[in-house]
């Protein structure tokens, strides 16, 4: 999977590594800002209200 990605990215190794770094930062940002906040209320970790 990651091997396939590496082979199909354009440019020399440095450029590929940079592209992957930017992609990784984007994925982490998406997880932290959107996915995890939406997921957290569904998990039994830190609920504090009475219902």
């Amino acid at each position: 999977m990651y091997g396939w990605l590496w082979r199909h990215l354009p440019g020399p190794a440095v450029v590929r590594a940079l592209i992957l770094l930017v992609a990784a930062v984007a994925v982490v940002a998406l997880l932290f800002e959107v996915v995890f906040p939406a997921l957290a209320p569904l998990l039994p970790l830190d609920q504090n209200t009475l219902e």
Partner: protein
Amino acid sequence: MSRAEAPARPGHARRGGSRGLGALGVLGELLITAGVIIALFVVWQVFWTDVTGARAAGAHVQAFEETLPESPEQPGTPQSDEPPAEPVPAAGETFATMFVPRWGADWEFPIAEGVGRLDVLDAGYVGHYPETQMPGEIGNFALAGHRQSHAKPFYGVDQLEIGDTIIVQTAQAWYVYEVTRSHVVLPSQVEVLAPTPGYPTAEATERMITLTTCHPLWSTRERWVIHGVLSHWVARDEGRPAEIIAMEEG
């Protein structure tokens, strides 16, 4: 695969084997990815939500205090008669901040209307149960807050002692409550939110405050509940409660 091609395409050279091994490799990569995502979630939940939550809470407090009328830095007369009627806020609106001297002079949290996760509790606020009364009112001013993660406003709930003060400031007044009870209930025991906490059918006679948070840590099994009763209130334009001045002076 030819020898000549191998150095240029190292990935192919390594894969070499059967289709089955390739699929296994992809599965392995997916599992490692899942592991990394779960680890990231733990970092987010345990560490990052406190960073962003504290930042948001500070910004909410600052923005709200800029809208407040001035309150002179002098002790105001403690009053125990009928306090001003507090207007019912819109959902998500910041309408008060609270102080708990036991939790330190730096501890101040904004209170917003509602107990939704995304808009209130996870956004750096303590939440006001909308079906409960307003500060100073006869009945129960009930609040929910995180005990861990999302800036964990009620982290120190286990240090609160009977007689400790909880101070709420609104645009009109300062309300000083005294802690009267600390207990653990099941999440279904909504009677702690009743106008007379614990007695849903009783007619309210006292001006109560209730804090709810989770218990045990990182669990949904129970809720830690603090009750308090209004000791007195101070009109904003007259000054501040002696408790606030004492806290700020350390």
